């Protein structure tokens, strides 16, 4: 056990830190759930890509710089620490990227990854369906194979970023009459294809954060399938574990608001300390965020040693989603009457950061597998309790 960074790691950190200091927009970008914000975020991603900081862990030939997970943790610490923009293409880059890296053909890699890294192609996920939320295997959208292409029909929902994105990826039932996890295929669908209709869903904050996607005889070439026909569940799940969870929510993503919460508390100590429990909650938030970071470094070390990581990702999911709620709830308690103000309000300064985060935190225990499902997984797969 050696908990210090090598010279190279320190240099990498400093490089990232300096680049961000020079390049992070001084003014916060508008939310990427608006057309304007989406385009500005796309430009930011291009800038990151040009500095080979978009996908630091990817091989150089796909636009990355071949870093390992520790470097990635360092990158994230600097990225969030600098208050840099949210990653608009993360569902493609972090979720689909790993899948293509593992299951894609050489052609698919060359075709999709570089444009994903540069965000020339923006990606939306298309997992959930109206009757396949927590119970993902309940998918009923169909893909019929006709020679060199599939014809897909059906409906997806809760598709993040789908309104402005160029592509979607998801599972479709390609074997008629198949049940549950069988007979599904993992397909990539251009969102400008004929027969695709996208209908926005307004999120809690009133912005079009999600969409429903309707597929009406949409033609998708076989080259857009990742993995074999009928193997979609396997493909989707193989990278669904620890790494995917970690990539989706790096520790720095929580350490940064925890750090800001501590500052908020220190700046408003007299008000906050009226309720004795606030100080304890602030300290807990910071401490929990740090524990999550320690846990990530620990797990990455074990992964690097070849250890298989199991249901830890379920525990991580529960932990960070509850931490996120506590951080932003505590901020709301400190802010008091002004915490409810929107960004446009004259009295709102830092408030909008906290309110946005508070709203987003509400979804944490729900998306990426509800926390109830995660607890079931832990109980059944880690503790060996019976399924039914």
């Amino acid at each position, binding site marked *: 056990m050696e908990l210090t960074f090598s010279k190279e790691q320190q240099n990498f950190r400093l490089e990232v830190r300096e680049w961000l200091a020079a390049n992070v927009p001084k003014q916060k970008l508008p939310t990427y759930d608006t057309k304007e914000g989406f385009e500005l975020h796309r430009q930011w991603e291009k800038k990151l890509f040009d500095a080979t900081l978009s996908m630091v862990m990817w091989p150089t030939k796909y636009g990355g710089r071949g870093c390992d997970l520790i470097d990635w943790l360092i990158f994230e610490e600097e990225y969030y620490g600098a208050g840099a923009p949210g990653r608009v293409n993360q569902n493609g880059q972090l979720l689909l990227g790993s899948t293509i890296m593992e299951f894609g053909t050489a052609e698919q890699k060359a075709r999709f990854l570089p444009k994903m890294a540069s965000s020339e192609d923006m990606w939306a996920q298309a997992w959930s369906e109206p009757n396949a939320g927590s119970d993902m295997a309940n998918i009923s959208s169909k893909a019929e194979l006709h020679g060199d292409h599939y014809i897909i029909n059906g409906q997806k929902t809760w598709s993040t970023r789908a309104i402005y994105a160029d592509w979607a990826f998801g599972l479709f039932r390609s074997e008629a009459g198949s049940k549950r996890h069988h007979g599904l295929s993992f397909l990539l669908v251009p969102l400008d294809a004929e027969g695709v209709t996208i209908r926005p*869903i307004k999120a809690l904050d009133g912005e079009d954060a999600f969409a429903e996607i309707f597929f009406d005889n949409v033609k998708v070439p076989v080259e857009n399938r990742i993995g074999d026909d009928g193997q979609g569940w396997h493909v989707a799940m193989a990278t669904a574990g620890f790494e995917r969870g970690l990539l989706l929510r790096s520790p720095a993503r929580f350490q940064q608001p925890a750090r800001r919460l501590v500052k908020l508390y220190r700046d408003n100590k007299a008000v906050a300390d009226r309720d004795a429990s606030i100080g304890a909650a602030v300290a807990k938030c910071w401490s929990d965020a740090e524990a999550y970071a320690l846990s990530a470094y620990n797990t990455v070390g074990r992964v690097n040693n070849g250890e298989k990581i199991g249901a830890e990702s379920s525990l991580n999911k529960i932990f960070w989603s509850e931490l996120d709620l506590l951080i932003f709830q505590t901020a709301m308690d400190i802010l008091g009457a002004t915490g409810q103000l929107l960004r446009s309000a004259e009295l709102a300064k830092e408030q909008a950061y906290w309110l946005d985060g*508070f709203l987003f935190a509400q979804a944490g225990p729900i998306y990426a597998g509800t926390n109830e499902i995660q607890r079931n997984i832990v109980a059944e797969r880690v503790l060996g309790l019976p399924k039914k």
Partner: protein
Amino acid sequence: MDFTFTEDQLLFREAIGRFLSTEASPENLRDIWSNEQAPIDNLLEQICAQGLSALSIPEANGGLGMGDIAWSLMTQELGYYAVVDQLADAAYVGAGLISALPNTVALKAEYLDKICEGKLRLAIGHECSPLVADAQLAGVLLMQHNNEVHIVSPDNVRITPNASIDTSRRLAQVDWQPSDKTCAASGEEGQIIWQETLNRGALSVAGQLLGLAQRMLDLSVEYSLQRKQFGKEIGSFQAVKHQLADVAGKIEIAKPVLYRAACSLENKHPLSDIHVSQARNFCNDAAALAARHSIQVHGAMGYTWEVDLQMYMKRSWALNNTWGDSTCHQARVQNYVLNTDVDLAPSKTFEVMS
């Protein structure tokens, strides 16, 4: 010792609930949330037409003379239907404030009459918050300046709207100048009025939060009976059951705390401050857990603008820090318990024996 409501009080509550269930339906509410001004006027006119604005006005002034105890039922209905601030602020809190002004205040009787007739809209600016609700709508503003109560015309103030997460709220900063001419009460008299007004405002919010909690619970129960996962209604899963049972528990325990506070306020009990803040803590808690568990039960649907839940949930988050931040109410109770030498014997719940 009789900790119950009269038949009349209970029937009145029921009638108000029936009225609001049509006049303040989720559809109407959604209109108010989506547009700027007009729909509030409609609703308020309907409400005034029912005589609801006259509830708190003393009988001598032509009102119904309804006290805090009865209002603790009313405010729950207002919360359940997420009725905008104006009604409770004018008909309950504002009317109480004006009634408490010295009779020498020339406008007092006129204002009480106008409230009775539903012709006066009030906004109250208390120093517990930099934001005044419904200032833009107000025909008159009652503003705090230290211990002084000032009656200010909208012509003499600058109102800067501040948009908030509950778009049915019209919050604003109000810039104004206190003067001898605007001052209607001061010194100890003014101090008592503001103390009582804060308590009444806080209690009004407590009741509304409890109503909101009940509404969120009802919506969640309904949703959990419709929505299926893994082939069963999600309401049949133990995790969902327990989450909703815990919300029911928070609501039930908050009720008597709310009612005791109302009784204390109505009877000018020396511990009214503490009792009101206790009520706020329990009602805040109930509403917070209701929001937390309701969005969870609603799953991804709960995160959308489309489901009604969002309006009640956001309103509960907003009210949680209205008429006193949640920390200020915690502080009043904590100070009493931790930093005094009062003996908190079981016999002292109602008695303030020496």
